């Protein structure tokens, strides 16, 4: 178990370093002058040169990279070019919305997918299975931004149950804040749930064919109990893997959904930063999102060991 943990931890750190190098290379080394990008092609030569010096772009790349990482280690990411406030402050404020949004969407998607997937597998090739698969096909086909707009039209404009968008902030109280997140969470969760339902269904069908399922029935366990006690946990091994991968989709989805619902989160910040060519914000935000995805997948690796005792000795 200890070796398993250490191996996972090393691969976790390496992935993080790899992601940061990749981001740095793409944004600062590949052809295209960041200072020129930020100021626009019409900017006077002197202003570009001044910004280059300001950003430290005249120094060698490895030095700049190490500076960036050392700054991150101290919790300093520099000033936002457009907002003129520390990037760290901007992020802290935005993450308060994006992290709950992404996790709530993942939680809702998992709940829906496990229920629907188990149900479909237990009704294999019958009407219930067919119904679930059709619904998931539909969920996959509808883009989340379009679903978001439909939800706004129905619940905000026609029924008038909620506001069309915006976020009052957690200071406004848990109720109103959560209320503002319901539609975005649903819009984000449906696509994720549709993918995950298929994974749960096929993993469950696979496990249902295992010998130990027949043993469970031979002991006198009913279909439902066999499904819950013997099938579910074994089926969760591939499902958890896909959940980790889908978390990246959920984070990417927040960029679109936060814009549809005009929620002041990381997604909206990144979108704006790209439009405003705010390189420092983009660079750090992308790394932060990558780090979040990597942390979640590290947690998934740890979950394996909890779900399957064989993993604990395999490595």
């Amino acid at each position: 178990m200890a070796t398993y943990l250490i191996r996972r931890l090393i691969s976790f750190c390496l992935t993080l370093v790899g992601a940061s190098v990749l981001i740095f290379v793409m944004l600062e080394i590949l052809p295209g002058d960041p200072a020129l990008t930020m100021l626009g092609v019409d900017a006077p030569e002197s202003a570009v040169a001044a910004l280059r010096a300001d950003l430290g772009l005249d120094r060698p790349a490895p030095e700049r990279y190490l500076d960036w990482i050392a700054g991150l280690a101290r919790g300093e990411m520099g000033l936002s070019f457009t907002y003129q406030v520390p990037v760290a402050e901007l992020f802290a404020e935005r993450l308060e919305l994006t992290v709950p949004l992404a996790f709530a969407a993942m939680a809702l998607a998992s709940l829906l997918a496990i229920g629907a997937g188990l149900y479909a597998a237990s009704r294999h090739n019958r009407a219930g299975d067919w119904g679930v698969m059709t619904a998931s096909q539909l969920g996959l086909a509808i883009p989340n931004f379009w679903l978001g707009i439909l939800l706004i039209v129905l619940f905000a404009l026609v029924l008038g149950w909620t506001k069309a968008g915006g976020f009052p902030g957690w200071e406004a109280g848990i109720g109103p804040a959560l209320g503002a997140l319901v539609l975005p969470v649903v819009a984000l969760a449906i696509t994720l749930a549709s993918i995950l339902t298929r994974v749960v269904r096929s993993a469950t069908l696979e496990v249902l064919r295992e010998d130990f399922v027949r043993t469970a029935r031979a002991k006198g366990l009913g279909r439902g109990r066999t499904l819950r006690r013997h099938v579910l946990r074994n089926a969760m091994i591939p499902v958890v893997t896909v959940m980790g991968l889908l978390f990246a989709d959920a984070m990417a989805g927040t960029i679109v959904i936060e814009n549809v619902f005009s929620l002041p989160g990381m997604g909206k910040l990144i979108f704006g930063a790209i439009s405003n060519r705010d390189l420092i914000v983009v660079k750090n935000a992308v790394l932060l999102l990558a780090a979040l995805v990597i942390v979640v997948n590290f947690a998934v690796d740890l979950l394996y060991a909890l779900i399957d005792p064989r993993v604990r000795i395999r490595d």
Partner: protein
Amino acid sequence: MSLLAVRGLTVALPTGEGEARALDGVDLELAAGGTLGIVGESGSGKSMTALALMGLAPAGARIAGKIALDGEDLLALGEREMDRIRGARLAMIFQEPMTSLNPVHRVGQQIGEVLALHRDLAGGAAREEARRLLERVELPRPARLLRAYPHELSGGQRQRVMIAMALAGAPDLLIADEPTTALDVTVQERILTLINDLVDAEGMGLIMISHDFGVIARTCEAVAIMYGGRVVERGPVADVLARPAHPYARGLIEAVPRLGRGRAGRLATIAGAMPALGAFPAGCPFADRCPQAEEACQLQVPAMRPLGPARAAACHLLEAAP
């Protein structure tokens, strides 16, 4: 009244073109505490018989006939009622001990499940009983084993755990489907001895399923030989072994290797292979492979013919013999 009486058990499975009978009119009889072996090649229907008895035939199978356990017709019972019988009055152990236990649950949990389900035991009482059961199947250090996962055990140990689980519900009838086929020869011997001892001590009935006549001879008093989803011969094991009546039974018994037969006696085999489900001849299922087959064998299914007390065989050629 007999413990188990099976009459005309027929299991039809859906195939690409229509239905095929995996079992066709199987009759079996077992007295309380009695032991019955079912022998046959793969595809003969012996495992399907076991699954049908447990009410675990594959989804989509159409089942007809009668399975009476202590006079109660199991085929007439609902799903829930059958759940109460499985594990409590009928228990089964399987061929593959490596995959028949759930890899993510501890041994103690898996045995405890039966105790909770059929004997209302939980907590410390269940743990104590599970420990006693592991002792009963002669596993060393049972208290430690309760906390082990299946992957930490050897094949023989897992099969002993399966047997302990089967015993947990104190069943009247134990069905063992090739319980030693996947094990080493030395372990096989010990598992068979254990099953024999437990059946004697608990007064359980036993149905032992095997392709190996030797295993049946070691564990059972009576035997039913199956071919093509039918019972083709039945009788006391010693009797059948000494004087097999059906050509298939003769072939099976001659095909058992014996030490000391020398090089001269090459191992006898039965020519050909068992046809696929649904591809059996219209008459006797064995007609295509039978060295003595006559024209009538191809046309008509032979009926079971009594050959003395508790003995019967289904073969057209027996008519001619005195």
